[in-house]
C-alpha cells in the first residue's frame, strides 16, 4: 500500500510539474499575473508530493518491505537501519528520486527567498525548474520506477553493496546532489533572463548567492567523496581521476568560473553573455555527470543501470536541455550587449583569464573522460586515459590561474597599472619565492614541483595578507577591530576561500612529496618502520559484525619507543553478497595520517600488509572545507540580508491595505 502511495504521489507531481513548466512561463509572456501566480503554489505542491514519495521509499526500507524490487535489491534484513535509509540512494532508481527531491527542495527555497524578485522573473525561474523536474519525473515513471513491486516478495534482500555500507554513503550523495542540482537555480535564472531579455546587473546580483550556495555544497560533496575513497577503497589514494570523479569535478570547475564571472557582471555589468553561457554550461555538466554516472556507460561502483532504454532517455533529455538552452542562447544573447569596456591590465581582464583557464581545464577533463567512451561507442578499440595525463595538464593550467588569484583582488577595476601592482606585491613575491626555494631543503628534499607547490600556496597566503592590510588601511575607523569588522563579509569570504586553496595545495604538495608507502609480508610479532613510526604486527583475530565476519589485525604503533596508538585494520567478508572488503585503519592527525590495510592471509598467521605514512593529507579536505566556509561567509554578506529584509518589509507593507491592487 505505502509504495503505491509513493508512486501515486510521483504521478501527481508529474502533473503539477507539467502545469508549473508551462502556465507561469506563458503568463510571463502574456503579462497575465494570475497565470504567473500559479508558479509558487505549484512548486510548493511539487515539493510536498516528492517528499511524500521519498518518505514512502524510506518507509519501505525501514520496514524491510522486500516486495519492493528496489528494496529487495539494495537492502537485507541484517543491514542496520541507518544504512537501510542511506540505501534509498544506494542505486539507480532511488538516487534519481533523491535528485528530483533535491530539485524540488531548491524550488521550495526559491519560492521562500524570492520576495525581492519581479513576479515575471520568478514565474520564469520556477517554470524552467518545473520543466527540468518534469523530465526527471517522466524518466522515473517510465523507465526507472523505484516503487516497482516484486511479486512474490523475496524472503530476504540482496543487501547493499558492502563498499557503500559506510558513513560516507549517508553524507556524500546528498551533498553532491545539493551541489549538482543547485546549479539548476543558476541555470533557471539565466534562462529566465534570456526569455525575458533583461540581462542587467540585477539578474547577476540575484543569482550570485544561489550559485555560491550550490558551489559550497558541491565542494563539500566532492571532498566527502574523496575522503571516502581514501579510507574505504583501502589504496590510500585521495583522487584517482576516475571518470566518475571527473563527472563531479567538471561542474565544479565551471561553477567556480561562473562565480567569478557573476562577480564581474554584478559589479561592472560586464561579461553578461559569457556569464549566461557559463550558467548553462555548469548545469549541463551536472546533467552530463548524472548521465555518465547513472547510465552504466561508465563501469564503476557508481554505475548501475544497464538498461539501454534508460541511457537513451537520458541522452534525449540531455540533448533537449542542452540543445534547447544553447539555441535560446544563440537567439537571445546577441541583444544583451557587452557591458562596460576594460583595459588589458585590470581586474576584469584577470578574472577573464581565470575564467578561460578554468574552462580550458574543464575541457581537458571532459576530453580525457569522454574520448575513451566515444572510441568504444564507435568500435574503434578500448583505451583508457591515465592519471598522468590529468596531472601533466593541470599543473601548467592552474599555475597561472593561481598566480592571477593573488593579484586579482588587488587590481583596480577597469584599469590597473603593472608597476603599481609590482610595487605593492614585491614583498609578497619576494617572501614566497625565497621561502618556497628554502622550505623543501629544510624538509630534507628538493624537487621543482615541491618548490612550485609551496610557492603557489605561499603566494596566495601572502597576497591575501597584503590585500587585507591595504583594505584596512583605506578604511576610516577607530580601532583595528572596528576596521576589521567594517570589511564586508563577502570580502572575507573571498579571502577565506582563496586561503582554502592554499591549504589544499600544501596538503597535495606534502603528500606527493613526502608520503611513504610499503607493501610487505609481516609475521606475527614482526615490526616495520615507516616515516619514523614503528608498526608491530600482533596477529589477526576473528571478529563477527552484524552482517559480516572479519579478520581483525592488531598493530601497535610506536615512535622513538613511545606508544602512539593501536590500529585495527580489518578484512571483512559480507555474508549476503559473499564479498570481501578491506577496511583500512587510519590514525588521523593534523600533520600526518598513519594508514594500515590488510592484504591477504599468508601461511602461519602472517599477512601481506600495506603501510602508509601520509603527511598533511587532511589538509586536502580541510582546504576544501575552508573554501566552502568562505562561500558561506560570502552569502551572509550584509547586502543580501538588507535586500532580504527590505523585501520582507515591503511585503508586510503591501499586505496592510485591505485590497492590494492586482497588476
Amino acid at each position, binding site marked *: 500500500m505505502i509504495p503505491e502511495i509513493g508512486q501515486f504521489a510521483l504521478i501527481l507531481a508529474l502533473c503539477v510539474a507539467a502545469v508549473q513548466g508551462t502556465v507561469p512561463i506563458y503568463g510571463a509572456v502574456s503579462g497575465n499575473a494570475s497565470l504567473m501566480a500559479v508558479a509558487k503554489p505549484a512548486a510548493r505542491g511539487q515539493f510536498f508530493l516528492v517528499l511524500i514519495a521519498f518518505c514512502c521509499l524510506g518507509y519501505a526500507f525501514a520496514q524491510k518491505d522486500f516486495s519492493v524490487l528496489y528494496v529487495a535489491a539494495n537492502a537485507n534484513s541484517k543491514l542496520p537501519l541507518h544504512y537501510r535509509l542511506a540505501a534509498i540512494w544506494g542505486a539507480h532508481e532511488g538516487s534519481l528520486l533523491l535528485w528530483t527531491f533535491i530539485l524540488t527542495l531548491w524550488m521550495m527555497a526559491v519560492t521562500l527567498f524570492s520576495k525581492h524578485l519581479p513576479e515575471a522573473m520568478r514565474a520564469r525561474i520556477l517554470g524552467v525548474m518545473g520543466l527540468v523536474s518534469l523530465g526527471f519525473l517522466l524518466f522515473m515513471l517510465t523507465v526507472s520506477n523505484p516503487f516497482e513491486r516484486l511479486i512474490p516478495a523475496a524472503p530476504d534482500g540482496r543487501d547493499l*553493496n558492502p*563498499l557503500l555500507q559506510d558513513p560516507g554513503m549517508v553524507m556524500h550523495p546528498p551533498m553532491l546532489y545539493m551541489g549538482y542540482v543547485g546549479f539548476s537555480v543558476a541555470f533557471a535564472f539565466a534562462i529566465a533572463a534570456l526569455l525575458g531579455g533583461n540581462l542587467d546587473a540585477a539578474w547577476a546580483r540575484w543569482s550570485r548567492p544561489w550559485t555560491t550556495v550550490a558551489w559550497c555544497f558541491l565542494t563539500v560533496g566532492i571532498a566527502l567523496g574523496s575522503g571516502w575513497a581514501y579510507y574505504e577503497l*583501502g589504496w590510500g589514494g585521495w583522487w584517482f581521476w576516475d571518470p566518475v570523479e571527473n563527472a563531479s569535478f567538471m561542474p565544479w570547475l565551471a561553477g567556480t568560473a561562473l562565480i567569478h564571472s557573476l562577480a564581474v557582471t554584478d559589479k561592472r555589468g560586464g561579461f553578461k553573455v559569457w556569464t549566461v553561457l557559463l550558467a548553462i554550461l555548469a548545469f549541463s555538466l551536472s546533467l552530463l555527470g548524472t548521465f555518465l554516472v547513472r547510465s552504466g556507460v561508465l*563501469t*564503476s*561502483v557508481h554505475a548501475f543501470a544497464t538498461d539501454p532504454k534508460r541511457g537513451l532517455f537520458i541522452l534525449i533529455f540531455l540533448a533537449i536541455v542542452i540543445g534547447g538552452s544553447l539555441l535560446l542562447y544563440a537567439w537571445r544573447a546577441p541583444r544583451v550587449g557587452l557591458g562596460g*569596456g576594460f*583595459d*588589458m591590465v585590470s581586474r576584469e*581582464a584577470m578574472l577573464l*583569464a581565470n575564467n*578561460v*583557464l578554468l574552462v*580550458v581545464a574543464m*575541457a*581537458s577533463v571532459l*576530453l*580525457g573522460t569522454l*574520448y575513451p567512451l566515444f572510441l568504444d561507442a564507435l568500435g574503434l*578499440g*578500448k*583505451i*583508457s*586515459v*591515465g592519471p*598522468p*595525463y590529468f596531472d*601533466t*595538464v593541470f599543473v*601548467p*593550467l592552474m599555475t597561472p590561474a593561481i598566480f592571477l588569484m593573488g593579484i586579482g583582488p588587488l587590481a583596480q577595476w577597469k584599469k590597473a597599472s603593472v608597476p603599481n601592482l609590482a610595487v605593492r606585491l614585491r614583498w609578497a613575491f619576494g617572501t614566497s619565492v625565497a621561502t618556497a626555494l628554502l622550505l623543501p631543503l629544510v624538509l630534507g628534499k628538493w624537487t621543482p614541483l615541491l618548490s612550485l607547490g609551496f610557492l603557489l600556496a605561499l603566494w596566495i597566503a601572502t597576497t591575501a595578507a597584503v590585500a587585507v592590510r591595504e583594505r584596512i588601511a583605506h578604511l576610516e575607523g577607530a580601532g583595528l577591530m572596528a576596521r576589521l569588522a567594517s570589511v564586508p563579509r563577502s570580502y572575507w569570504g573571498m579571502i577565506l576561500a582563496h586561503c582554502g586553496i592554499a591549504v589544499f595545495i600544501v596538503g597535495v604538495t606534502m603528500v606527493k612529496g613526502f608520503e611513504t608507502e610499503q*607493501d*610487505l*609480508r609481516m609475521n606475527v610479532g614482526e615490526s616495520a618502520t615507516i616515516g619514523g613510526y614503528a608498526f608491530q604486527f600482533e596477529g589477526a583475530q576473528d571478529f563477527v559484525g552484524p552482517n559480516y565476519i572479519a579478520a581483525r589485525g592488531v598493530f601497535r604503533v610506536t615512535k622513538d619507543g613511545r606508544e602512539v596508538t593501536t590500529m585495527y585494520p580489518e578484512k571483512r567478508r559480507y555474508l549476503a*553478497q*559473499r*564479498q*570481501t*572488503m*578491506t577496511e583500512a585503519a587510519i590514525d588521523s592527525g593534523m600533520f600526518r595520517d598513519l594508514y594500515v*590495510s590488510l*592484504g*591477504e592471509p*599468508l601461511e602461519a598467521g*602472517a599477512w*601481506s600488509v*600495506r603501510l602508509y605514512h601520509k603527511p598533511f593529507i587532511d589538509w586536502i579536505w580541510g582546504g576544501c572545507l575552508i573554501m566552502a566556509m568562505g562561500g558561506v561567509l560570502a552569502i551572509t554578506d550584509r547586502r543580501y540580508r538588507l535586500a532580504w529584509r527590505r523585501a520582507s518589509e515591503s511585503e508586510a507593507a503591501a499586505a496592510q491595505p485591505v485590497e492590494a491592487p492586482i497588476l
Partner: protein
Amino acid sequence: MTPRQKRFSMIGLGLAALGIAAALVLNAFNSNLVFFFTPTQVANGEVPKGQSFRIGGMVEAGTLTRENDGLTVHFVMSDTVKRVPVTYKGILPDLFKEGKGAVAQGRLSSEGTFVASEVLAKHDENYMPPEAAEAMAKAKAAGKQSSDTLVVTP
C-alpha cells in the same frame, strides 16, 4: 594604442594562450593513452614493444602462485584461446580471484611475461570488467570460426 588595436591585441593574446593550452593538452593526452589488448593479440605479437598497455581476461584457475616474500604473485591470464603469464608485486585487490575476470596494466618483458604495475578487479562479485568480457567474447567468436574451418579442412 587605439581601442581597436587594443581589442585586437587582446584577442590575439587570448587565442595564443588557448593555442598553447590546446597543444599542451593534446600532447599530454597523446602520450598518456593506454591501449587495451586481449591475450590473443598479445600472443600474436600485436602489442607495441616497451610501451605500457592493459590486458584483460580470465585469471586461469589453479595458476596463482606466490613467492616467498608473500607479495610477488604469478598467474596466467587467458581469453580461453591464448594464455599470457603475468607477474605482479604488491597486494591484489579484494575481488581478484582465480576463475574471475581481471584487468592488468603493465609492460611485456622480453621473455613474454606481462609485468603488471597495477591489477584491477572491480567492485562487485558478479561484475566482469568490460575489457575482460570483450576479450572472452572475441576469443569465442574467433574460436568458433576456427572450429568451423577445422570441420571443413580435413
